[in-house]
């Protein structure tokens, strides 16, 4: 029972992380229909930037995180400008942006290695340890959950209450119609690339503090973002959040039955089964 509670809490903490990744990835995907695979290395880039600023240049952590967010947002906008926008102009078939994104992925991933070196980076911060009955958690875990809650609420408010937010929702529903009613879809696309990448930077900074950063971490991250979106149903950000938590819980509670070596595979197997059996997502009927 104690183990179960511990795994449940781990699942919820990781769920916050995956849900955050799902929010950022899902926002870009559902609005622009672009499978932005390079979301992964941009996330890695953010983590290394934060490390560089905090450990290398000695800036306070909060300032370093802001720097990481700025760099990620810039890279997000740049990838739309330099790659996806050009492909849209050529009227490339829908699969081409994804394939090009794979190219961008290996470019950025290796650029991280060239710029920052390829070793694992950790920050010398150890959070305080807390016990709630038999369950163990750290202040970093609390930060992860809290960041997710704040960002999710802020994003929800932004999407519903502001002009640009509503433009994003309109474009998610029907890009053609959005254009017809006079929404500048190019500007909205830039906006979601900036916001989505910024969100990924927050997740990256938290993971850096918690586990450290490695050059290949982005691959897993973008997959988790994709899994969250698929499990939740494309086009629904609430679904992406639910999907993120669900996958994390399956992954965590899966430890009951599956050796640790295989834990990393669980999410891929979940993704595989999900796309096979229910490509429209678990919650597709309850859109938004």
């Amino acid at each position: 029972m104690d183990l179960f509670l511990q795994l449940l809490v781990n699942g919820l903490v990781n769920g916050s992380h995956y849900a955050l990744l799902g929010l950022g990835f899902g926002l870009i995907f559902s609005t622009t229909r672009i499978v932005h695979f390079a979301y992964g290395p941009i996330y890695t880039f953010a983590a290394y930037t934060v490390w560089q600023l905090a450990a290398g240049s000695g800036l306070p952590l909060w300032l370093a995180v802001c720097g990481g967010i700025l760099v990620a947002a810039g890279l997000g906008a740049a990838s739309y400008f330099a790659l996806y926008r050009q492909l849209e102009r050529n009227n490339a078939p829908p699969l081409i942006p994804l394939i090009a994104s794979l190219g961008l992925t290996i470019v950025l991933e290796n650029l991280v290695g060239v710029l920052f070196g390829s070793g694992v980076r950790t920050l010398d911060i150890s959070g305080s340890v807390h016990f709630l009955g038999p369950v163990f958690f750290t202040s970093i875990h609390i930060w992860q959950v809290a960041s997710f809650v704040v960002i999710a609420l802020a994003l929800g408010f932004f999407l519903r209450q502001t002009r640009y937010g509503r433009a994003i929702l309109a474009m998610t529903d029907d890009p053609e119609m959005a254009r017809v009613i006079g929404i500048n879809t190019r500007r909205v696309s830039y906006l979601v690339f900036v916001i989505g990448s910024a969100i990924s930077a927050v997740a990256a900074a938290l993971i850096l503090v918690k586990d450290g950063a490695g050059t290949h971490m982005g691959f897993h991250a973008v997959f988790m973002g994709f899994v969250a979106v698929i499990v939740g149903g494309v086009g629904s950000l609430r679904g992406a959040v639910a999907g993120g938590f669900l996958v994390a819980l399956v992954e965590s509670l899966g430890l009951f039955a599956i050796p640790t070596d295989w834990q990393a595979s669980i999410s891929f197997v979940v993704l595989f089964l999900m796309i096979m059996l229910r490509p429209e997502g678990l919650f597709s009927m309850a859109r938004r």
Partner: protein
Amino acid sequence: MEYLYHVAVLFCLYAILATSFNLLVGFAGLFALSHAAFYAIGAYATAIMTTSLGMPFPVPMIASIAFAALLSGIIALPALRVSGHYLVIVSLALQVIVLQVIVNWKSLTGGTDGISGVPSFEIFDFALNTPGKFLLAAVPALILCYLFSSRLIRSPFGRALRAMRENESAAQAVGLNILYMKVSIFALSAALAAVAGSLFARYFSYVGADSFSIDETIYILAMVILGGTGNLRGSLLGAAILVAIPELLKFLPLPVDIADKMRLIIYGSVMMLVLVFRPQGLVPEPKGKRAMLVDTEGEDRKADAGWLLEGAHGDQVATVMDGLNLGKRFGGVVAVRDFTIHLKTHRITGLIGPNGAGKTTAFNLLTGFLRPTDGRIELRGEDIAGKKPHELVSAGVARSFQDLRLFTNMTVIENVLVALPNQAGHRVSSLFFKPMHVARQENQNAAVAMAILRFVELDGKAHETASELSYAEEKLLVIARLLATGAEVLLFDEPMSGLDQTTLAEILPILKRLADHGKAICIIEHNLDVINDLCDEVFFLDEGRAMAVGTPEQLMSDPELTERYFK
């Protein structure tokens, strides 16, 4: 010198990988990005069989090929149900899972240490243990793989693959078995990757999971895209360029790990630049007559296409198809309810009604594209529930689409050829075991296809690319392609919409002649003059049900219907 030979061996390996990947990505249009996984499977299978089991050549290579083909076939069955983005992501996940299994199955694969000590090839005590000598194995392997791929592509099967790539539902509608094609091309592509894997293990005498990561798949993909998708020679060129570039980098004074990263950065950049500035690649897929994969010298011969244009019931009027009380619901929406129709030879049946009345849904039900939620469909008295579209085509029911769905990048005659029934060349095994039979049939088919084109008066355009036709010609080609299936029951979805009077006057007699020849015809049409002129019986559909059935005169004299129709 040995260094140059080493580069040449690498080129051979990657040329095999790139051409086999092009089969899947370029010709079949399936972006299943797990090629490096099958490369790995081939390498590991050979390494395990030579080191642990001590098997002599050629057993390990054959086993590698067979194992990769089998495994990919099993995987393909579920994975190829999805398409587009999902297929890309699923196959990337698959690649990760395969590598995880390799790394975690330590007793078999050595885990992260890999397997070393794989013996090189030996021919009568002559060991191929230097790069120069290894070329004696690598070059013939490349040539064989290339010839195999080329045979596959330049055949009726290859033509069918391209048709599937152009439009999957249209390919089904002309009777192609999509599932068979996807699984076989996936398995064959994996088998060829396993050949490269097997050579890899022999050459480096070591296999480790690092060599087969996702980066490797993307590397091979970059070769295919740079060279040009849908062109095998392009893949050779792409492989040559992308193997040579990192070797040139070695002349720059860079630390080793930076050089390795630069290499990957270059591949990624090449891929993006090509996709933005030259998406067709360095050697684009040929178009027009040059793209014809099959010799068409037979096309000028006399051919009797009559058997394709005749019904099977001679002069008598017979009911061949019955839809009984058909119903279709999508969630809560009822698209068709309680719809009963009988299609007879020598008769033209019309479906009219406002947009959204369920006419096209009715077609989809009758041709197996949708499964009815209620009711039965019988063909010559036999229940055909649950049959796939391509099975129905060979049973004698074929349809056209309102939005045409031509194979636009193929020539006019290829559009017709691909639809001809019972082609031995559509089966991979016949290509290699009955090549003469395939060639003979192909010659006859070319003549038959030409005869059908003459029937619709498109023979002058036979070698033009379908995308270059005028709208009216496209409509004629749709009819020609539908006729080529030889089906007895023909369902035309708005064959005459958007045409001017002159073209109408060309198409109307064609449909009448088909009915005279004994076909059972059903058309969806909005033009009431056409309905009046052609149809023996008309169904007026609205809100998913038949509001009225009768001769055109009867329906048009009903004031209530006319009002409904023009509301």
